[in-house]
C-alpha cells in the first residue's frame, strides 16, 4: 500500500499511521481533522490492513456509517480506486434507503466485506432475527462526520445501534472521523467503549476568509443580498469553480435567478436544494464532480462530506451563524494541504456584517463553537426497544444495562426505562385497554417477545428519526418539479408567483394533493419569507459579536457605513456589548416598542417573545405582537411598561414558562415528531396522501386528548425533554437571562434606535398562535366583514 501511495508521490500522514497503530492494537480511535487531510483513508486503513492479513471469511468485516446517503455513495467511489488498483481482496457495497430490495436481500444473505450505510439502515439490519449471525464477524465500525451526531435524534439512534452492535460482536473497534471541535474528550466518550485514543490533526494552513466588498449601501435588514449581486457575480467569474452556500431555499432561488440575469459570460451555474426532485439534485452533483459546472448555488443539502477538490472558492451568503459550520463549509474548497482554502462571506445586512467580522477573528483565534451533547430522547429509545424486540426475545435487565452504555442514555434511570418499555408494550396508559393487543409479551422464562412477528413490518416502515415537515409535490403539467413545504403553500392564493427550481412559477391551485403550477409570464416573483431550516446563531459567535460591538478600537476593521451606524446607535442609545443586556423603549406609530438585545438566537428569542407577551398582558400593558431576529426581539404594546427589571426577571422561566408551554402550538410540533419517532402514529409517506378522503386523525388532536386525560404520559415527558434545545431552546434562554440580569441597561428613547430598525422593518408573515388567539383572529375577521358590509349598504 505504501508503494501505491509512493507511485502517486504520496506518503502516509502521521495521523493515518497513528490511527492504524491504535486500531490494529484494538483501541477505539477518534480522528479530529480538517477536511481534505486524508481522514477517510485514515479510517479505512486499519480495515484494509486487517483484512489483507486474514482474508475475507464471507462475513461483514467493516461497517462504514455516515449521516448522508450521498456520502455513503461518494466514499464508496473513493475507496474503489485503491481497492481495485491494489487488488485488495475486498468486496464492498452501499446500502441506504434507496437501495433496491433485491440487492438488500442479496446483501443480507451474502454480505460484502465492507458495507457503507446510514444509521437508519444499521437500525434496520439490527432488527432482523439473524442479526447476531450477520454481525458475528464484524471487526471495524467507521463513523464518518461524527460531529454531526452529538446533538440530534439521529445521533441517539446511532449510539443505541452501536451499543447493540457491541453486544453482538464484542471486539469491534470503533473509529470516528470528526471535524475539529472544541471538546474532543466529550466526543471520545460519546463514541468509544472505554479507552479510546484521540488523534488531532491541526490545520496546516489557515483558511483565507474575506468579506465581499461592495461600494453599495449595506441594507439595514433583509436576507437576499440584492446589493451584492454584481460583486458576487464578479467573484464567481474570477474563480475556477465556486459553491455559493445560502441559508434558506428562498435565498437559493433568488440568488440563482439573479446570477443568471447577470450571466453575460454564460457561466454554467446550477442550483441545489433539498426540495428539488432527487434526480435533479443527483444530476447537479454528477455534473459538478465531472467538472461540468462553474458554480452551484446550494443550501445545506450540499453541506456534508462530499469531496470536491476542484472547488476553489466557497462563498457564504448570509451570516455563518456558527464558527464550526463555517469552517466545515470553507473546508470544501481546495483540498490541497499546502494552500489555504479560500472563502468569501457575503453579509446581507448590517448585523450580519458584524457577525462576519467577528467570525473572521474567531477563526484566526481558533475559537470553535462548543459542541452540544444532548440527552437521548425517550421517543428514539422507544423506537430502539421496538427494534430490539423485532430481532428476537430479550431480557429487560440486560437490555437496560446495554442501553446505558450508549452515551446519550448514560444517566437514564431504570424507572424511566421501565416506563418506556411499558409504552412500547401497550401504549403505557394509566387506563389499561385491551390486554390482548399488547405489542410485547413476557414468556415464562422472563424474556420479552413480540406478540405477533408481523408487527416487525410496522417497525421497518417507520424506522428513523427524521420527520420531514409535510411536503407537497409541485407539478408543472405532467412534470414533477420537486416538493415544497405545505406550510408555504397554504399562504399562497391562485395567481401568486414564487421561485422554485430556478423558475418563476404561478400558483394555480391544489389538485390530488399536489401543487399545480404554470410558468409565470413576468420574471419578478413575489418571494415569500420562508424561515424554515434556519439555524440559530451559536452562543460562541454571538459573544464574539457583542465583544466586537463593545470594542470601539476594533471598529476600524468595519466599513465606514457600519461603524457610523454603531456610533450613531451609541449616541442615541447604548451599545449592547458583552456585559450589557440593553433594553430600549420607544414609541413608534402609536405603539410602544420594548426591544431586548439578548443575542440569544432566534429560537430562544421567540420563546422570550411569547413569555413577555404573557407577562405584559397580565400587567395590563396590552401587548399586540412581537418580532425577532437572532440578536434581538421587539414586543409592541398599547401601554408602555414602567419597569423593565422585573419584566425580565429570570423567574420568567418558572411558572410563566410552564403555563405557556401548556398551550403553545410549538409544543404540538415537537409532539408530532415524538409521536412518529416513538411509533405512536405511523409515518405518512410522501405522495401517499389519498384525495377525497378525510385524513385519519391528526397528532394535534391526540395531543389535546392526552394532555387533558393523562398529563403525565411518558410521551408528554419526552416532549418536555426536547424543549431544552432546538425550537424552544429553553436552556439557552435561561442561561442568557441568568447571566445578564444584573446588567440590564434600560434606555427610554423618543424614537426608534438605529439597531432596532431591522426589527421594525421585519414583517413576520408566519405567526404562530394558540387556540384562543386564533379565535380572536376569527372574531376580528368577522367584525371586519361586518363593518365592510355596513359601509356598502350605506353607499
Amino acid at each position: 500500500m505504501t508503494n501505491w501511495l509512493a507511485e502517486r508521490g504520496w506518503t502516509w500522514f502521521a495521523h493515518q499511521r497513528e490511527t492504524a497503530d491504535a486500531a490494529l492494537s484494538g483501541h477505539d480511535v477518534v480522528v479530529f481533522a480538517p477536511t481534505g487531510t486524508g481522514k477517510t483513508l485514515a479510517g479505512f486503513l486499519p480495515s484494509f490492513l486487517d483484512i489483507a492479513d486474514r482474508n475475507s471469511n464471507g462475513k461483514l468485516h467493516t461497517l462504514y456509517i455516515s449521516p448522508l446517503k450521498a456520502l455513503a455513495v461518494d466514499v464508496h467511489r473513493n475507496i474503489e480506486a485503491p481497492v481495485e488498483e491494489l487488488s485488495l481482496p475486498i468486496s464492498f457495497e452501499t446500502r441506504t434507503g434507496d437501495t433496491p430490495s433485491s440487492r438488500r436481500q442479496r446483501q443480507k444473505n451474502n454480505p460484502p466485506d465492507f458495507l457503507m450505510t446510514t444509521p437508519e439502515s444499521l437500525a434496520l439490519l439490527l432488527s432482523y432475527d439473524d442479526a447476531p449471525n450477520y454481525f458475528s464477524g464484524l471487526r471495524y465500525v467507521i463513523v464518518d462526520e461524527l460531529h454531526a451526531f452529538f446533538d440530534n435524534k439521529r445521533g441517539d439512534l446511532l449510539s443505541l445501534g452501536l451499543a447493540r452492535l457491541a453486544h453482538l460482536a464484542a471486539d469491534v473497534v470503533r473509529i470516528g472521523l470528526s471535524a475539529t471541535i472544541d471538546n474532543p474528550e466529550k466526543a471520545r466518550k460519546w463514541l468509544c467503549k472505554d479507552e479510546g485514543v484521540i488523534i488531532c490533526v491541526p490545520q496546516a494552513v489557515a483558511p483565507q476568509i474575506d468579506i465581499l466588498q461592495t461600494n453599495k449601501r449595506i441594507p439595514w435588514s433583509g436576507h437576499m443580498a440584492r446589493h451584492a449581486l454584481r460583486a458576487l457575480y464578479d467573484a464567481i467569474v474570477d474563480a475556477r469553480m465556486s459553491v455559493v452556500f445560502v441559508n434558506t431555499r428562498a435565498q437559493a432561488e433568488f440568488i440563482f435567478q439573479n446570477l443568471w440575469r447577470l450571466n453575460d459570460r454564460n457561466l454554467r451555474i446550477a442550483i441545489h436544494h433539498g426540495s428539488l426532485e432527487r434526480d435533479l439534485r443527483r444530476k447537479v452533483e454528477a455534473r459538478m464532480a465531472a467538472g461540468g459546472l462553474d458554480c452551484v448555488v446550494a443550501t445545506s443539502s450540499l453541506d456534508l462530506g462530499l469531496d470536491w477538490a476542484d472547488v476553489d472558492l466557497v462563498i457564504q451568503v448570509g451570516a455563518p451563524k456558527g464558527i464550526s459550520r463555517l469552517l466545515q463549509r470553507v473546508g470544501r474548497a481546495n483540498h490541497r494541504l499546502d494552500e489555504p482554502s479560500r472563502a468569501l462571506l457575503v453579509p446581507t445586512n448590517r448585523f450580519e456584517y458584524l457577525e462576519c467580522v467577528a467570525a473572521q477573528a474567531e477563526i484566526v483565534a481558533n475559537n470553535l463553537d462548543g459542541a452540544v451533547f444532548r440527552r437521548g430522547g425517550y421517543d428514539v429509545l422507544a423506537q430502539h426497544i421496538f427494534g430490539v424486540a423485532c430481532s428476537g426475545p430479550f431480557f429487560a435487565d440486560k437490555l437496560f444495562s446495554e442501553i446505558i452504555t450508549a452515551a446519550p442514555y448514560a444517566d437514564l434511570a431504570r424507572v424511566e426505562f421501565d416506563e418506556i418499555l411499558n409504552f412500547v408494550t401497550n401504549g403505557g396508559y394509566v387506563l389499561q385497554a385491551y390486554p390482548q393487543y399488547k405489542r410485547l409479551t413476557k414468556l415464562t422464562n422472563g424474556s420479552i417477545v413480540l406478540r405477533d412477528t408481523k408487527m416487525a413490518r410496522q417497525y421497518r416502515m417507520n424506522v428513523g428519526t427524521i420527520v420531514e415537515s409535510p411536503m407537497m409535490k409541485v407539478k408543472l403539467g405532467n412534470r414533477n418539479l420537486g416538493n415544497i413545504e405545505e406550510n408555504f403553500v397554504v399562504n399562497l392564493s391562485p395567481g401568486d408567483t414564487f421561485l422554485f427550481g430556478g423558475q418563476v412559477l404561478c400558483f394555480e391551485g391544489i389538485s390530488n394533493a399536489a401543487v399545480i403550477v404554470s410558468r409565470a409570464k413576468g420574471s419578478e416573483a413575489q418571494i415569500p419569507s420562508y424561515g424554515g431550516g434556519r439555524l440559530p446563531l451559536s452562543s460562541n459567535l454571538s459573544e464574539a459579536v457583542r465583544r466586537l460591538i463593545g470594542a470601539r478600537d476594533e471598529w476600524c476593521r468595519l466599513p465606514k457605513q457600519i461603524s457610523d451606524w454603531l456610533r450613531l446607535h451609541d449616541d442615541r442609545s447604548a451599545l449592547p456589548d458583552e456585559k450589557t443586556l440593553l433594553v430600549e423603549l420607544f414609541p413608534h406609530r402609536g405603539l410602544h416598542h420594548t426591544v431586548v438585545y439578548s443575542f440569544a438566537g432566534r429560537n430562544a428569542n421567540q420563546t422570550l417573545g411569547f413569555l413577555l407577551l404573557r407577562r405584559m398582558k397580565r400587567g395590563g400593558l396590552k401587548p399586540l405582537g412581537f418580532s425577532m431576529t437572532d440578536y434581538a426581539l421587539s414586543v409592541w404594546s398599547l401601554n408602555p411598561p414602567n419597569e423593565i427589571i422585573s419584566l425580565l426577571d429570570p423567574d420568567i422561566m418558572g411558572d410563566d414558562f410552564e403555563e405557556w408551554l401548556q398551550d403553545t402550538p410549538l409544543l404540538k410540533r415537537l409532539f408530532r415528531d415524538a409521536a412518529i419517532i416513538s411509533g405512536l402514529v405511523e409515518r405518512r409517506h410522501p405522495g401517499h396522501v389519498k384525495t377525497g378522503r378525510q385524513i385519519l386523525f391528526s397528532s394535534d388532536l391526540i395531543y389535546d386528548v392526552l394532555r387533558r386525560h393523562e398529563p403525565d404520559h411518558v410521551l408528554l415527558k419526552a416532549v418536555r425533554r426536547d424543549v431544552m434545545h432546538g425550537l424552544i431552546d429553553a436552556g439557552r434562554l435561561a442561561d442568557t437571562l441568568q447571566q445578564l440580569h444584573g446588567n440590564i441597561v434600560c434606555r427610554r428613547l423618543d424614537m426608534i434606535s438605529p439597531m432596532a430598525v431591522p426589527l421594525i422593518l421585519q414583517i413576520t408573515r408566519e405567526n404562530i398562535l394558540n387556540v384562543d388567539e386564533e379565535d380572536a383572529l376569527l372574531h376580528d375577521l368577522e367584525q371586519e366583514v361586518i363593518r365592510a358590509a355596513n359601509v356598502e349598504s350605506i353607499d
Partner: protein
Amino acid sequence: MSNRLIEFAGQAMELHHSGALFWHQQNMLVVGDLHLEKASSYHKSGQFLPPYDTAETLRRLAEAITFFTPARIMLLGDIFHDGEAWLRMRVSDRDRLLNLFESIDTIWVEGNHDEHFVPPGHISQESCELDGINFRHIMDTSKQTPEISAHYHPVASIRHRGTRVRRACFVCTPQRLLMPAFGALTGGLDVGDVVLAPLRGPDTQVYLLGNDAVFAAPPGLVVS
C-alpha cells in the same frame, strides 16, 4: 358563548361550537360522526392511541345536551367507529351514553362505519324525513329536497392578517347542510376537495367552529 342562528329550508337552526346543530321548531339536537372508540380500533394493529377519545366526545355531547335540553336527538351516522366499538367501550362510558339519552327521543340514522349498530333497545333507519328536511349520513346529490348530512368531516382554512386558521366547519347551501364531525379524534376533509365540489356555489356559506363560538367565514377568504 355565541352560537350562530341561521335559516335553512325556512327553519331556524342554531349552530353550536361543539359541532352540534339545534333545530328550534323540533326542539331537536343533531350530531354526527362521533366515531366512539376510534382510538381503540387501532390497538389491534399495535398502534396504541390514547384511549380517552370516547370519554372526551361524551363530555362534549353532555355539554351540548345540557345547553339545549332538547326533547329529541338525531344521531346522523358513524356514532361508533366500527361494529365492535360498543363491545370495546368501557362500561362506565356505555352507561354514560345511555343515561344521556334517558329522557330524550333518539333517532339513529345508519352510517357507513358502524355497520348499522345501535345500542340495545334502539333501532336505526337508513334516512329520515322531518318537516320536509331529509336527514341522511352521506349526501345524495341526485335529490333536490333540503337535506342535512354528515360523513365528510368538513374542515376549512381561512387566511387573515397573514395567518391561516384551519377548523372543522358546517357547510351550508340553500339546499344542503353538511355537519362537521363531532368526535374528539376525527380528522377532516378540506372543503376545497373535489368530492365536495357539488356544495360549491355563490350561496355557499362556511361556518367555522371556534373555542366557544361559531364564526362565519367570508367565502372569498376560504383557502384550500
